[in-house]
């Protein structure tokens, strides 16, 4: 059972994409994508390489030119500047994690809190993040380039949490990581969502894991949504099982 939808300010989902088109120069990457993320839930965006998953997230953050309408909490953010979209409360963990490799672990987290002035609350959020990722505490002075891929992914999620976001965008958190680490990271994403009601849109090739933690999911193929439904429905759906679950 999917959790009940919690409506945003205007009775809409927290994040809503309607008929979004996007292109990189002459190459069109999205052909009318509509996705919505209800407040408090995890939504998964599945699809093969090059289906347009990353582009969808980049469209939300204003990192690619788009047509259509993207709204966040009822506010139109279509083609917003990435820094202004971030300031509205959207934390985007990009594909490849966006680690600030020459900075220390602690400086990476500080950058997450860049927009905030509330020192006390920032300290509490650091404790919260190290609650999820205890290894960070002892290694805060370490330069981030020395971290493993899994640790960098955790640090990237930690940096996003330091923003105190209202929406978390995760681009392929499993990329290049060992299965055990991937499972651990997905468990933490589920825990964060459960404990903090943090709305999350996660893009994944690993449909199996994504469908386990998501309430709702979409399947993208060459820039179009070809399937959507509750995660449990999709996990049973024959074409999804064939194409993405390796059955």
């Amino acid at each position, binding site marked *: 059972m999917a959790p009940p939808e919690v409506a945003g300010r205007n009775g809409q989902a927290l994040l809503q994409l309607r008929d979004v088109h996007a292109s990189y120069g002459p190459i069109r990457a999205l052909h009318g994508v509509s996705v919505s993320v209800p407040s408090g839930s995890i939504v998964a965006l599945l699809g093969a390489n090059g289906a347009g998953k990353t582009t969808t997230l980049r469209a939300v*953050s204003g*990192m690619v030119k788009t047509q259509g309408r993207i709204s966040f909490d009822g506010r139109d953010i279509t083609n917003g*500047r*990435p*820094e202004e979209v*971030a*300031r509205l409360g959207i*934390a*985007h963990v*990009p594909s490849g994690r*966006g*680690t*600030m*490799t*020459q*900075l220390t672990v602690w*400086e990476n987290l*500080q*950058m*997450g809190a*860049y*927009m905030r002035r509330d020192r006390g609350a920032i300290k509490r959020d650091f404790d919260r993040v190290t609650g999820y990722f205890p290894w960070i505490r002892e290694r805060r002075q370490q330069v981030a*380039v020395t971290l493993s891929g899994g640790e960098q992914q955790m640090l990237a999620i930690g*940096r996003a949490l330091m*923003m105190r976001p209202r929406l978390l965008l995760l681009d392929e958190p499993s990329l290049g990581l060992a299965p055990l680490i991937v499972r651990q990271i997905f468990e933490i994403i589920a825990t964060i969502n459960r404990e903090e009601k943090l709305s999350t849109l996660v893009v994944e090739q690993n449909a199996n894991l994504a469908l386990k933690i998501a309430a709702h999911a979409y399947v993208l193929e060459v820039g179009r949504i070809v399937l959507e439904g509750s995660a449990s429905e999709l996990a049973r759906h024959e074409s999804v099982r064939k194409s993405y679950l390796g059955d």
Partner: protein
Amino acid sequence: MDLLLAGFSFTALIQQIVSGAGAGAVYATLALALVLIYRAMDVANFAQGEMAMFSTYIAYALVGGDFGLVGAKLGFNGVHLGVAGAFWIGSIVAVVASFGLGILIERVLIRPFEGAPLLTLVIVTLGLFSMVNGLAGFNWGYVFKTFCCPFPQSAVNVGGVSFNYTDLGIIGVTMIILAAMALFFRYTKLGLAMRAASLYPESSRLVGVRTSWMLALGWGLSAAVGAVSGILVAPVVFLDPNMMQSVLLFAFAAAVLGGIESPLGAVVGALLIGILLAVVGTYVPGGENLRTPFALLIIVVVLLVRPAGLLGRPETRRV
């Protein structure tokens, strides 16, 4: 060799090293200004010296009331700070004004070229070089002006080596700027954001950093540090629109020698260059004319042998 070493005295060598370090400290402040912009946008700002020269004219105008042609037309020449410490007050106002002008230059001239190839930006800074030089020449003319003096014109003698207050003062100011920069980039949130914005622009924007303004801030800080450099050098060489050109070459040599991304490297490089040039000027026959070629030689050799410079990290960016 006999010829070279004839009349060699150890005290004289120490004296050369001391005055070389004084000259080097002037190159250091301009090199620090270069490093600030290089770190922000990977561009060598060829207009750095001219910007510093113009800032110095602002200080000169405030202190002495000579606003040049513009002042004559608008009738406010002669208006000046007639108080004790006018040199310092005028200089501080000029440094602050330069900070604002640096930001303005970035917004008006550099911003339109965001994302343009580096060569385009280099050409823009070359254009800025001749524009600022022309404006100063147009307004104040190409005659030498005296603009003096931040420090007492005397010296202390320690064991036969004289340390003059100007050199000591310049070295002191340079160290203060270096320390302030180090503290700013290491311990303040804004300094951290400026570093992050230049190294990881995309990740920085995704956490809400207005990277474009970080760049403007870099230009502002650079212009302010450059202003200090001009104000320190003017009393030594006299004020004229071309006064910073050789200083700029030596500052480039210093920044390249020390590592153009490293503030400490720039200062170390500048002191070494100041000392080397003083020694070459004294002990090589005709050496005083070899200073400029020697600076170029240093740039070329460092770029060949150790492109990251003495204290620069070998290229690890853009991974």
